[in-house]
């Protein structure tokens, strides 16, 4: 039932930059003048073309635009918009101005969607952060394309109305029809989480994986091709606890902005810690985030609260590894753009894999110890300092495969991991890898600290390595259900660092015996 | 054979074996020139177990005594290094020797002596011309 024509038609929406959304409203006015329909203001190209799409969509719906000068503008005026998400609210604002839809809509309803020339409402990315912003603004209802409905429904306190055409919007808003139920998305395929039971042998690596999971430590898997490095890396997420609401929503927001949530049938919030394994030939933008125009989140953000697996570490370009320094250190990645810097979260655990030595390590290895240390020192740089575990994987012989007992199952190990993580959470609200050195030292036995100190004196550990090894020892103590870090835990932590050898002391020991030096 | 150390026992066995080998050569009609010959040069190591004359040949013999019953090949005793040493020793002896041996040929033999503890008399394996 048409209502009186207001002076200005208004519709509410939200714009998303990075993961931040802000409220936006679109206003439409009509005046005397040559018939035209244009969008003014500093908006993106797609938004400017919205006028054409809206006109076509309305025509398809049977609403003819009067021959007046129609102007649409955004408030705030300079919305860093992108894409066609504002087609639908723009159409709604026009319909409100025309009296087709009630003006009261602007008080309690928001709209988000792209319009097809046939009047259909299409899904858009970043609906989740937009929906949260809208809900936070106190708006009670959101109209989105059916494909975006499940995503928006993750936000509590918001009534989500799925629509497939502009006609639907008119019908629901005028009360001619009840809002449809959110379409039941197809059940998410129960992706089998790979189980640790499948891993045979590799005692050191399995233990290192458990420590990494329990403390959030970064690790480097060393082994020849085909010995199971990928297999192990892909099993780390399974050992991590399910994401809580906050973390799951953060991850979902990143996926939403990346356009990965719409229509993919995510029935409920995905709480599984993600695993991303980019290829070493990937671009910086794909890895870190960016791309022309819209700064989309990269692999590291898609691995937020999960695992980033870098296989063939020595094939990666140095500049990409260097660029990982900031995200690994700070948990966010900043992508600079002309108008603003977009920030995406990137809190992830790093698993790297590499051959153990220059010859590959398969079969009989002829590399001398000096060759191997020189090779491993190539790991130097931003990542070397951050890796705390470096287990050696040995190739399995056929005999071992037949006779080796199956490893413990993921469930059993995950239980231990969860208990250890709980201890750390109680102690300092996070995992050990992110605890401050002073705090960790305070929980250590003097004998343990002395042992670490001696390792530094002997040149086995660098100064920085002291605190890193101590953090791992703290995790070993947690796994041992021990409130104080003791010598034994330090021993284990040092043994796990053996593949890294901060200062390459083993070379200098052997070389001082082999090379001519001072006659003692 | 009461609490005799193994080393002494082995040395004893070796001496007994050499004696048996010498007796064997004498039974064959050879004349034994010298036993356990060492050169004057201290840097030329080793010794020749038996140097004997067989007809027109001067024979340098290596004696290998075993107490095991199994028939091990006596030739196994002659390793490449051992062979080299025998030749050097032979040449040194020939250089030092005072008798005129220019008309005789030189030969190397290996004599294996198998003497298990229970046996009264040992078994002799005599390999002629073991080193060419």
């Amino acid at each position: 039932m048409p209502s009186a024509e207001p002076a200005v038609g208004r519709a509410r929406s939200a714009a998303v930059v990075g993961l931040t959304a802000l409220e936006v409203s679109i206003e439409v006015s009509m005046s005397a003048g040559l018939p035209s329909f244009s969008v003014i203001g500093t908006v993106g190209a797609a938004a400017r073309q919205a006028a054409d799409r809206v006109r076509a969509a309305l025509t398809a719906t049977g609403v003819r635009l009067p021959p007046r000068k129609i102007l649409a503008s955004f408030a705030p005026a300079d919305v860093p918009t992108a894409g066609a998400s504002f087609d639908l609210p723009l159409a709604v604002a026009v319909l409100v101005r025309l009296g087709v839809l009630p003006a009261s809509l602007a008080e309690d309803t928001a709209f988000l969607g792209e319009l097809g020339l046939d009047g259909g409402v299409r899904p858009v990315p970043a609906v989740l952060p937009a929906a949260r912003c809208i809900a936070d603004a106190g708006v009670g209802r959101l109209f989105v394309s059916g494909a975006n409905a499940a995503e928006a429904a993750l936000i509590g306190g918001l009534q989500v109305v799925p629509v497939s055409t502009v006609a639907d919007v008119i019908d629901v808003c005028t009360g001619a029809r009840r809002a449809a139920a959110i379409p039941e998305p197809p059940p998410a395929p129960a992706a089998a989480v790979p189980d640790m039971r499948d891993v045979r042998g590799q005692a050191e690596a399995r233990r290192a994986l458990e420590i990494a999971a329990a403390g959030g430590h970064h690790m480097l898997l060393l082994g020849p091709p085909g010995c199971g490095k990928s297999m192990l890396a892909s099993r780390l997420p399974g050992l991590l606890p399910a994401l809580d609401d906050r973390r799951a929503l953060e991850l979902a927001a990143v996926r939403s902005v990346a356009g990965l949530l719409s229509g993919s049938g995510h029935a409920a919030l995905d709480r599984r810690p993600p695993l991303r394994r980019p290829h070493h030939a990937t671009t910086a933008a794909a890895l870190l985030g960016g791309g022309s125009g819209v700064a989309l989140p990269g692999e590291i953000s898609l691995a937020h609260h999960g695992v980033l697996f870098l296989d063939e570490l020595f094939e990666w370009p140095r500049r990409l590894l260097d660029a990982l320094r900031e995200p690994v250190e700070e948990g966010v990645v900043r992508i600079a753009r002309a108008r603003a810097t977009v920030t995406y979260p990137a809190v992830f655990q790093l698993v790297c894999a590499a051959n153990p030595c220059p010859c590959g390590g398969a079969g009989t290895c002829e590399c001398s110890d000096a060759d191997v240390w020189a090779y491993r020192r190539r790991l130097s740089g931003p990542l070397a300092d951050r890796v705390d575990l470096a287990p050696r994987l040995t190739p399995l012989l056929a005999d071992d495969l037949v006779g080796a007992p199956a490893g413990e199952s993921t469930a059993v190990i995950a239980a231990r991991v969860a208990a250890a993580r709980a201890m750390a959470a109680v102690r300092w609200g996070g995992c050990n890898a992110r605890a401050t050195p002073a705090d960790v030292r305070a929980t250590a036995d003097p004998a343990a600290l002395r042992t670490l100190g001696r390792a530094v004196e002997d040149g086995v550990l660098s100064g920085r390595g002291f605190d890193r090894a101590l953090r791992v020892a703290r995790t070993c103590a947690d796994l041992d259900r021990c409130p104080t870090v003791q010598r034994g835990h330090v021993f284990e932590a040092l043994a796990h660092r053996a593949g890294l050898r901060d200062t390459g002391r083993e070379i200098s020991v052997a070389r001082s015996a082999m090379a001519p030096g001072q006659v003692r | 054979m009461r609490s005799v150390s193994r080393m002494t026992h082995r040395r004893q066995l070796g001496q007994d074996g050499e004696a048996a080998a010498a007796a064997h050569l004498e039974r064959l009609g050879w004349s034994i020139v010298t036993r356990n010959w060492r050169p004057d040069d201290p840097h030329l190591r080793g010794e020749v177990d038996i140097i004997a004359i067989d007809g027109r040949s001067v024979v340098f013999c290596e004696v290998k005594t075993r107490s095991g019953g199994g028939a091990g090949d006596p030739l196994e005793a002659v390793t490449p290094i051992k062979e080299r040493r025998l030749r050097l020793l032979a040449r040194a002896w020939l250089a030092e020797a005072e008798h005129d041996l220019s008309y005789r040929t030189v030969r190397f033999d290996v004599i294996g002596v198998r003497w298990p503890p229970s046996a009264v008399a040992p078994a002799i394996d005599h390999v002629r011309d073991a080193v060419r």
Partner: protein
Amino acid sequence: MTVPAPAWRTAALRLAVGNVDVTRQQRALSDLLERGQDCGPEQVVAALERHGGCPDADVRRVQRRMAALGARFVLVGDVQYPAPLATAWPELGAPLWLFAAGGPVRLVTTPAVAIVGTRRPTLDGLRTARTLATALARAGVVVVSGLARGIDQEAHRAALDAGGDTIAVLGTGFGVDYPGGSATLRAAIADHGALLTELAPGAGPRPWQFLARNRIISGLAAATVVVEGGPTSGALQTARLAAGQGRDVWAVPGSINAQNSQAPLALLRDGASLLTSVDDLLDSLALSRSCAAGVTGAAADGGTPPTALSADARLILGLLGAVPATTDELVAASRLPAHAAMVAIGELVEAGCGVTTPSGVVRA
């Protein structure tokens, strides 16, 4: 052999500075032998004069340099020419001349033993070289080697540390810093032993010269011991030269899995004597064992006595050897859970009983 007259010395020095090499010497020698002629040093020098030599200015320059270095030119037949080498002259290819620096080489009554091995030894090989050289030095035996990195230098150093004498046979002339950084060691050897070389001062290293110098190493010693070496190592060649010279050849057995055991194992197969302890060697040289008292090759655990280690650490220690063992291997052999094995490894490294290498853990 009569001492060569001064004229021949100068002629020989001219040949040496002119780098008339071993092959040419031996050819001249065999020529003379074939013709049934006298082949004392003078005759060989005379035969060689046709082939090589150098301007007088060069000879004088070298003489000045030798004076500055305190080096001497020794011809075979000189009193100072090492007696064990002289017995190899002429047929077995002893060098016609030697340049000597340091003390006089008195090997007539004092025996010498050569210790040779690879340039890339394992820690265990280094330990063996040290133990042997120390015991020999304490027993008054001169240790001979080639100053190469690895086993050679360890043997020289251990002999010096034990207060003994050592002779280094160089693959270069004097005044050349090869191997790099060995100047201090060479100086110490000159003080307590001698440096010998067939090459004129300033002559740099060439691959074939090392083979030639190996015959001098083996020729100086009553016995040559090969501690470690790969299948094509120079140490193997030195040992075979020793056998050719009628000297004793000893080899130290290593793990059949280790690359560095290939040379000693091959020699043992060929009939070298098995060296399982220093006593074997000393006995054969008919030396009193009491001189070497207190030095054994058996595992002397320096540092923490085994009883201070935990049971797990002692268990793992018992499994460690000279061949690196990976954690997985130790876990499988000890049947300890992985984390307990790692704790034990860390404990052993801290106590100095074990060393981690890129290929695994080795006994220290």
